[in-house]
């Protein structure tokens, strides 16, 4: 089934859906411009704006449900952005509204949680301003009805992410991590920009309606556009080969890791691929590359997750891996879209709940992140333990919890497409069972390995309530979406639907194998980390462990592939131009800088030499004119 037609819309709640973006943006503006005057109530304003956005989102959703199924793609025209090129509008359809509810819902919970988490931080107001800015940009990203608007949101979330990773800029590691995220993302953005140029030159429009409607035409360079869009998605969603920034991004405050680097922003790549599905369906090569990237990342993320002792980095590895699943599903075409987005939503719940749980643990342990210094926390932090535990069970795919439904759907769909992909995804699920159990047992069970001065305690209610609400989502969300193909039916007007929807087979061979592998992984983790002694210092480990600990040498690879040759080039250039300036400029710049340094000597400071250059210039101009005139 093809996606439904897009209808113009005005009036009603949908007509004012721009409020969803405007309110948090207003919040950010007030908080940033208001300065210290807003310190006392700033965080409440931030929460209120996010909640208000959520309320508008829900009302929009309700109004959308009231329309007929084929009528559910509405475009609200806002204003002419660039005359003759871009008309800014919002596309409210099942796909974007799913994201809206996730972003504003989970976002609001995380806002509330942050009131407690950041209560002692002098920069709390600034923090909420950035969070609001993020929510606004993310909503623009998913709601815009054209690629330009999407790109502005895309850059906006990048900016907010950059500001929030480096929020504690007094820590050099945080500042470095922020810059790394910034630079790696530029590589992806470059792909996205070139894709947009191609789209403009091919279709003469940026709006989704005309562009995607004609994406299947014969003369469209769909493969090129698809691959470039994928490059953009890889940057934002930390997929191979642009994954390296995500682990470092954990330097930011934990609510940020939960909201931006787990639940929402990093899934923007999946949104991009699903939204631009028409290009990928027209280009099987691009689709194949998408699935390969997805599978490779889901395995790489899982392997990295097995070896990290830093609780946030282990969770970040798992985020990479889970997004790998989504990208894999998105690469499968209409059969996978619903599962990709459903997994994205359930993942938003359980991963946010685990990240916030980790934050709660860190809050209790004086910001210690090394899991080897945890252990036995279950007895002192009951709520955190329970909510984290439910998230943990959901992510490993414990039967009937959220992850079970959505991840199993992806595996089934991949199996249908190609058994190799399917089995690799099954192995990934097994690894998930191992590394997530490792995190859970090392943190909450086994012997207490706390530092001398640690006095863990349960976090305040303002932090635990969001955890509880999120874990409700991680328990029931999957079943709600998947049973009876409810979500697929809802989503189909926006993204199309497969010829015959995939039935749910709980007792298929892959399904059983997955469960068995997960059980083995969890059991092994229990014997290794739950029951037996965990050494306080990480053992040397095998070659494989080192490999995983070093992020699969992702950084080393980047260094040797990109940085080193760059540095060599620079040195070469400096060698030829050893008058390079100040050491400030390097590489190509050294050449320009060197010539600049010499050229500026023509500015002698003597008025007479300026007059000479003018006379000379006048003579040249006159001579040239005479020459051209007499040709």
């Amino acid at each position: 089934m093809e996606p439904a037609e897009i209808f113009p819309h005005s009036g009603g709640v949908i007509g004012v859906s721009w409020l969803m973006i405007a309110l948090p943006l207003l919040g950010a503006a007030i908080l940033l411009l208001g300065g210290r005057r807003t310190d006392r109530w700033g965080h409440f304003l931030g929460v209120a704006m996010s909640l208000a956005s959520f309320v508008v989102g829900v009302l929009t959703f309700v109004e959308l449900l009231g329309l007929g199924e084929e009528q559910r793609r509405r475009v609200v025209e806002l204003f002419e952005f660039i005359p003759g090129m871009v008309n800014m509008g919002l596309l409210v359809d099942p796909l974007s509204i799913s994201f809206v509810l996730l972003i504003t819902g989970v976002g609001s919970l995380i806002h509330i949680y942050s009131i407690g988490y950041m209560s002692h931080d002098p920069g709390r107001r600034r923090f909420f301003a950035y969070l609001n800015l993020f929510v606004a940009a993310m909503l623009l990203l998913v709601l815009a009805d054209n690629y330009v608007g999407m790109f502005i949101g895309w850059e906006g979330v990048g900016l907010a992410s950059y500001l929030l990773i480096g929020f504690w800029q007094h820590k050099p590691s945080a500042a470095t991590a922020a810059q790394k995220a910034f630079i790696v993302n530029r590589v992806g953005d470059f792909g996205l920009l070139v894709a947009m140029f191609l789209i403009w030159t091919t279709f003469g429009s940026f709006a989704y309606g005309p562009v995607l409607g004609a994406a299947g035409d014969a003369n469209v360079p769909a493969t090129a556009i698809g691959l470039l869009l994928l490059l953009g998605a890889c940057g934002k969603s930390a997929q191979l080969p642009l994954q390296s920034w995500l682990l470092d991004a954990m330097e930011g405050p934990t609510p940020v890791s939960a909201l931006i680097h787990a639940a929402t922003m990093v899934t923007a790549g999946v949104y991009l691929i699903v939204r631009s599905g028409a290009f990928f369906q027209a280009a099987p090569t691009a689709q194949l590359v998408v699935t390969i990237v997805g599978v490779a990342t889901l395995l790489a993320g899982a392997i990295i997750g097995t070896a990290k002792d830093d609780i946030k980095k282990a969770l970040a590895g798992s985020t990479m891996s889970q997004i790998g699943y989504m990208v894999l599903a998105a690469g499968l075409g209409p059969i996978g879209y619903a599962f990709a987005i459903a997994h994205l939503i359930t993942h938003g719940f359980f991963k946010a709940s685990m990240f916030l749980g980790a934050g709660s643990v860190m809050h209790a342990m004086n910001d210690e992140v090394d899991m080897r210094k945890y252990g036995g926390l279950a007895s002192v932090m009951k709520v955190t333990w329970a909510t984290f535990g439910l998230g943990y069970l959901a992510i490993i795919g414990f039967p009937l919890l959220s992850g079970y439904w959505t991840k199993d759907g992806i595996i089934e769909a991949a199996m249908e497409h190609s058994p190799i992909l399917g089995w690799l995804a099954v192995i990934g699920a097994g690894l998930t069972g191992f590394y997530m159990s490792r995190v859970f047992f090392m943190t909450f069970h086994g012997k207490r390995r706390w530092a001398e001065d640690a006095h863990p305690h349960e976090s305040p209610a303002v932090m635990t309530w969001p955890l509880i609400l999120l874990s409700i989502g991680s328990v029931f969300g999957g079943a709600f979406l998947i049973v009876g193909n409810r979500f697929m039916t809802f989503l189909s007007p926006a993204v199309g639907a497969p010829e015959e929807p995939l039935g749910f087979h709980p007792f298929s061979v892959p399904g059983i194998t997955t469960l068995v592998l997960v059980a083995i992984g969890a059991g092994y983790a229990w014997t290794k980390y739950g029951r037996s002694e965990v050494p306080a210092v990480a053992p040397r480990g095998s070659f494989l462990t080192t490999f995983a600990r070093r992020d699969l040498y992702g950084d080393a690879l980047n260094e040797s592939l990109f940085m080193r040759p760059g540095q060599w080039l620079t040195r070469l250039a400096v060698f030829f131009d050893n008058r390079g300036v100040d050491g400030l400029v390097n590489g190509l710049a050294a050449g320009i800088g060197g010539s600049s340094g010499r050229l500026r000597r023509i500015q002698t400071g003597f008025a007479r030499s300026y007059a000479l250059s003018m006379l000379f210039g006048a003579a040249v101009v006159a001579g040239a004119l005479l020459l051209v005139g007499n040709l």
Partner: protein
Amino acid sequence: MTTHYLVLSALLFSIGAVGVLVRRNAIVVFMCVELMLNACNLAFVTFARQHGNLDGQIIAFFVMVVAAAEVVVGLAIIVTIFRTRRSASVDDANLLKY
């Protein structure tokens, strides 16, 4: 023959331009600029004669007025810098460079 006047005007203009380049004293440099303006006046008047209309002659009057205004401003600036530096050499004003 009006051509001779034009040649004279071109010569005067060139002498003025070269004077700007070779003289150091700001006052003399400025007088060379005035010479250039007057060379223009000669050209205007000559062309007015050639074309048989009065525009060129009127322009010459305007140019004279403008040149006079320029003298006022120019002398003020040059005198100020002379009082500060005890030198009217344009080459001495050489702090701003590169």
